[in-house]
């Protein structure tokens, strides 16, 4: 039995910020996701008592970089910043312009 249905799919779509109005595509999504989630049921048979979760790929810990001052001016990072700003779809001066968050 799958744990996903029309209603929960709707909720997931809103959480993931994806609009999907096409009923046929929503149906296919639901079908695919249910099938994949059903497949995951095999994990239930694995005994994981007292097993520490493996959260990442690395065994390194506490890796820090020393603080350094970065300039906005004419250096590599300044150049990078300029190029990033050029990518904004709408801007005012050097700021990214977006529609209102609250109305």
């Amino acid at each position, binding site marked *: 039995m799958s*744990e*996903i249905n029309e209603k*929960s*799919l709707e909720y*997931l*779509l*809103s*959480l*993931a*910020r*994806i*609009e*999907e*109005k096409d009923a046929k595509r929503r149906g296919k*999504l639901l079908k*695919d*996701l249910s*099938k*994949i*989630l059903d*497949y*995951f049921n*095999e*994990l239930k048979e*694995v005994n*994981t008592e007292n*097993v*520490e*979760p*493996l*959260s*990442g*790929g*690395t065994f*390194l810990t506490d*890796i*820090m*970089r020393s603080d350094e001052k970065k300039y906005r001016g004419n250096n*590599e990072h300044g*150049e*990078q*910043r*300029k*190029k*990033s700003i*050029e*990518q*904004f*779809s*709408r801007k005012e001066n050097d700021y*990214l312009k*977006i*529609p*209102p*968050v609250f*109305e």
Partner: protein
Amino acid sequence: MFFDKNFTIEKYRQGLKSRKFSITEAVGEFLGYAKKENEKIGAFLHFSEDEALFQAKEMDKDIESELEVSPLFGVPMGIKDNILISGQKATAASKILENYVASYDATVIKNLKRDRAIFLGKTNLDEFAMGSSTENSAFQLTRNPYDISRVPGGSSGGSAAAVAANMALGALGSDTGGSIRQPAGFCGIVGLKPTYGAVSRYGVIALASSLDQIGPFAKTVKDATVIFKSIAGHDDMDSTTSDTDYSKVDNFNDVEVKKLVIGIPKEYFIGGMSPEVEKEMDEAIGRMRRDGFEVKEISLPNTKYALSCYYIILPAEASANLARYDGIRYSAPAELKGMDINLLSTYLKNRGAALGDEPRRRILLGTFVLSSGYYDAYYAKAQKVRRLMLDDFLKAFDKVNGGVDAIMAPVAPSTAFKIGEKTDDPLSMYLSDIFTIPVNLAGLPGLSLPTSKNFIKGKLPVNFQIIGRHFDEKTILALGNYYETQLING
């Protein structure tokens, strides 16, 4: 054309040394050939012709002083389009990044530039590297050079096809669950997935950050090693990179190859493999045995859970990584105006219109497994199973207790499949990663190389993989080089 199918980085360097051709001539020929072939194969998404030719001309001036010291001097390469080259497009084959131009170089690109490689262009991939056939690209299909009705594998299908079709001498890909090793196998070339932390991920468009690694494609193990050596090493910009010293990774003579004990994991051989793959694998193992290697059966008991484990962890990480693509910050796709009446509806509309089916599926899957009420049953459970899988490998490699030095396994359950064969059923597509996924979950290095040269005589290529200990690329590369040069090159 002065190069043939067997042209390698090694031969290219010899040609340059004896001044048989100039870099400008060579790069010009490669570009001309690649652009023509691309109409059929579709390996490249865009070429950077002017830049490449400019570089070539500059390098011809420096050849006297720099050829010896720069291991990739003038070598024409293709770069997977999820890796940033400053000033060039980096689309990750997604509509949502259609017009994005990278603002900086990935560390791997900086390293290749330091060693003076030349980039011919950016290669096709599955959208955000999600897929096993490159059919999920939002822009174009890539075809297998050995049979254009078939896929090149994926997600780094463009890079694999480019090298196999002689459109470049080497390429970079990324491997999250097999995306270098499987396309290398479908296209009959060499691909290396390095240890997690061996190569900096700074400047790669992240898919699943605990699994992703960048690695090389090439025609020989030696060539792949040259590229790996260039890109590997610690990077301040990626705190997961290790400080392992790779400066002697190409000294294969240091490795007493014949003393290596090879493990064959029995769980990889219980059904699921197509007859042609099974036959090629049997023959490859037989070659090792006949040559005097100690080959023994080992057990990796949790292998069968790898797929479930991976397809929980990957979407969870991907759903977080892809949250930043909103059609606002990294340029807007042409057909979107970029903005709607309010911010929320802008996000919904842009992402709804510009993310393809597979990213959509995986983002939703990730959102689901991380959501309240399901976290423990899916995500936490998968992380525990991931630990068990790592423990299986560590036990297998435990030399003191009768462990092995390297593991030999198939790369993919079948040879390259037909275009369109698996696009309707995501689960059947996922199953084509079943042999490569465990290596990513455990963070190990895996080298994918052809079992034989039979594919030159009209058959489809079949690769096997050599899996090594963490940060022990040298052993698997030396062993791979031995297999390639001594056991099938005769």
